[in-house]
């Protein structure tokens, strides 16, 4: 990565005196039974062109009828993003493409359903949400032959209209994001919210969540620079990489005397770089106008309030509640992981059953990755294990072995397993004599340790563990060694 044309791709800080300005446009497929304007199933992965009807195919004379469930899910999302839900209209966005059956997409334009919300990121960073509006998805084109994978130059193309008319919400952030980490956090948090409120499965790999990135750079305090939009960003990791690459590219361009053209760029994940897709002057004129086949959508207040009441506790609040309960940082990895998996309630159950909070968090985080929000293991079993370890009846290592057994069997009594495995914790006097034996056997290591070489302790602890066949508690051994040294 030494030549000048290939910008660095690691997430290190930008060159001194530069700041990136990032906004995200996220498209999310709503988890409805049927499409936005017709009764065909909204389902991914079936045989091509099996979920079609006159409306989906844009047959002459067919008319759209708005799916109430899609509106409800979009409102749920709007409320979860602290938006104002307002009366709104639909517009036609006109352009020709084979996977756009009517040659226009029904979308929302100057009067969207949800406006003026925000999303909180770690460190109390507030990212504005300009709007979250409803629109229909296009079909899916596959191009055969040719080298570009695009329609121009291909031998032929096939279109699958199963996706055409699937309800989407487009969530447009304000240009409030300043680092690629924040961008990734934003996408992750949005996905957590979408899953939590049941609006979408939000899978980037299946395309049910798609992210377009707008990037510009400036010197802090200056007005916004010219932005480029990056498409084909297909994973959270790619979001970060694409933003970092693009910001550096723009800075290099400006510092070498160039200017940034407003354009759409394509992220090549294998090469780790963006390249020009089309310049602004080549952009389509979409000739937006009010969709005459639909009427004003004016969600009545009572309905909106009942949707608000039905919202679950959102991930941020769940992390805070878990953090308060078990005494961890609400922005810690454990808090994110457990809430993401929906296992925060389970941890709380373990604690309520008398379990030790800190250990409960560690156990569930480490051993329940494959379990869902409702693990098969009774919370009482985990609770009992934490108590056993806390009381020094088993060592941390032994506890881990017992935990694996409990998870494997979907439950089990920790004390019985400990007994079966011969995991009786050694009493302190037995450990002390083993420590003394280790010191006697390795006088060099002991001398180094006494001279402050902490690393030398490892050999002594190892010897005790070997003698005790792993039954000695490492923490107890360390404590005895420290006590001996300070005598």
């Amino acid at each position, binding site marked *: 990565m030494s030549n000048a044309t290939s910008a660095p791709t690691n997430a290190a800080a930008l060159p001194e005196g530069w700041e990136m300005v990032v906004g995200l446009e996220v498209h999310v497929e709503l988890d409805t039974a049927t499409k936005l304007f017709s009764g065909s199933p909204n389902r991914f992965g079936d045989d091509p062109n099996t979920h079609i009807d*006159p409306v989906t*195919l*844009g*047959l*002459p*004379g*067919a*008319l*759209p*009828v*708005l799916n109430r469930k899609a509106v409800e899910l979009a409102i749920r999302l709007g409320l979860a993003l602290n938006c104002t839900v307002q009366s709104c209209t639909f517009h*036609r966005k*006109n352009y*020709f493409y*084979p996977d756009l*059956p*009517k*040659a*226009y997409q029904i979308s929302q334009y100057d009067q969207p359903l949800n406006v003026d919300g925000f999303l909180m990121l770690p460190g109390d960073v507030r990212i504005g949400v300009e709007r979250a509006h409803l629109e229909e998805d296009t079909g899916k084109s596959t191009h055969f032959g040719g080298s570009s994978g695009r*329609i*121009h130059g291909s031998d032929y193309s096939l*279109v699958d209209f199963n996706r055409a008319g699937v309800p989407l919400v487009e969530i447009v952030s304000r240009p409030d994001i300043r680092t690629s980490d924040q961008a990734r956090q934003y996408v992750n948090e949005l996905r957590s919210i979408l899953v939590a409120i049941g609006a979408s499965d939000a899978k980037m790999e299946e395309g049910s969540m798609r992210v377009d990135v707008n990037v510009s750079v400036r010197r802090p305090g200056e007005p916004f620079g010219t932005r480029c939009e990056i498409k084909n960003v297909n994973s959270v990791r790619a979001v970060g990489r694409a933003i970092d690459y693009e910001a550096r590219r723009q800075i290099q361009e400006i510092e070498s005397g160039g200017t940034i053209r407003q354009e759409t760029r394509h992220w090549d994940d294998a090469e780790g770089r963006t390249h020009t897709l089309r310049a602004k002057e080549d952009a389509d*004129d979409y*000739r*937006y*106008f009010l969709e*005459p*086949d*639909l*009427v004003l959508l004016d969600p009545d207040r009572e309905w909106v309030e009942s949707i608000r009441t039905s919202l679950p506790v959102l991930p941020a609040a769940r992390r805070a509640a878990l953090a308060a309960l078990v005494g961890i940082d609400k922005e810690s990895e454990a808090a994110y992981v457990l809430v993401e998996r929906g296992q925060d309630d389970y941890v709380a159950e373990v604690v309520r059953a008398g379990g030790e909070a800190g250990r409960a968090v560690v156990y569930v985080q480490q051993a329940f990755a494959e379990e869902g929000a409702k693990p098969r293991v009774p919370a009482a079993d985990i609770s009992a294990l934490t108590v056993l370890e806390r009381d020094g009846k088993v060592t941390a290592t032994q506890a881990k072995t017992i935990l694996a057994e409990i998870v494997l069997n979907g439950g089990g009594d920790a004390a019985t397993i400990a007994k079966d495995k011969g995991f009786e914790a050694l009493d302190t006097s037995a450990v002390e004599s083993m420590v003394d034996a280790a010191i006697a056997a390795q006088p060099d290591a002991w001398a180094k340790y006494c001279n402050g070489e902490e690393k030398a302790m490892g050999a002594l602890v190892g010897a005790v563990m070997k003698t005790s066949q792993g039954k000695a508690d490492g923490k107890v051994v360390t404590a005895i060694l420290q006590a001996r040294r300070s005598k």
Partner: protein
Amino acid sequence: MSFPTVAQLARDIREGKVTASAVLEEHLKRVDERESEIHAFNLVTAENARAAAVEVDRAVQAGKPLGPLAGVPIALKDNMCTRGIETTCSSKILEGWKPPYDATVVTKLREAGAVIVGKTNLDEFAMGSSTENSAFGPTRNPLDTSRVPGGSSGGSAAAVAAGFAAASLGSDTGGSIRQPAALCGLVGVKPTYGVVSRYGLVAFASSLDQIGPFTHTVEDAALVMESIAGHDPMDSTSLLQPAPSLLSVLDQGVQGMRIGRVVDMPEGSEPDVLERLDAAFAALKERGAAIVDVKLPSLQFGLTAYYLVAPAEASSNLARYDGVRYGMRVDAPDLNAMYAATRSQGFGAEVKRRIMLGTYALSAGYYDAYYGKALKVRRLIADDFAKAYQSCDVVLTPTSPSVAFPFGDKTADPLAMYLCDVFTIPTNLAGHAAMSVPFGTGAHSLPVGVQVLAPALGEATMFRVAAELERAR
């Protein structure tokens, strides 16, 4: 020439005086005799119609309940989808296309027992006022075959005027039912926007299009309207209203009603047409109505606004004919060339003209000056009507400034053709109801229609006045 009415036929069939099959054969016989001259139809569905008639006859014999239109032969404008039956909009681009579904009006007609005899000719995609823009050749006016039947629903009008069907359905975006009704001596109704479902009507300009009937009498129009109107969950712009009750008001007369006369009416009508309008006012006054002068100052801008709004919507509605999924495709080396070749060869000149007009009106930098301004005019016209209807119940105008004109008379000058609709267009822009009623003859002894305009959902009032005009004729 006089043909049996819908009401008569339905009654006779119900009472067993005549069979639906016999009625159908009478109509098909007239088709055999004159269709090659008139060209009312793109397709005559004789076999399906015979089967439908037999079914009605069986139901009559078995004493089963019958729909209000049982056994009545009805023709459909060829821009309404019929399941498994070619629907072309008189365009090469849709030639051979068979819809997989029925339009809501078709379903309703079938439920009412109607026998559908065929699909009628029209100006391509309903764009025109003479039916000369059909890709399959013009329709002739049965009353004078050297003249046009009007348009765009000229085939539907001619089919009824020639006795090929007892009634027909047309679509009216700027006058396409009322003007041909006037030119063929028929009753033609443009219902309030949203009263009749548009589901399955191939869109020209979605915010203006509305389906309505052609009939010989006001009573027949009421009968058909009651069968095809009413809320349809498949059309989001369909009003949450049951079908209006119209037959019951036909005998109520106009005593005490206020009839508006437009004092600032657009000029250019033939003297005979204006004379018939005056006669209509006189007749209604004589029968107890008051004539009230009203002003509709924005009416003069209606034509201009219409020729921005309608083409703008059309440019979007017709973009789907791209050769990808159905209809005509002209192969070419790449996608854009295929689009261009298909659309160049598939659409006729008038359709292309309107697509270009509409695309321009919606383009960045021009939207505000053209489409945006047209929407404002649309509101002004609605406001003017609202004011006028404070002092009157209906407004009377000519339907068409002239009687039926000869072929080729206006084809060289699109603007002259557009002026045919100067009196009918404002109703569509306002979303109101209007109908044309024959009221005597003008130049060349050709029929003249008087147009009755009513506010939104004013169908009952409108039909009362129309029925009275019919009695006074």
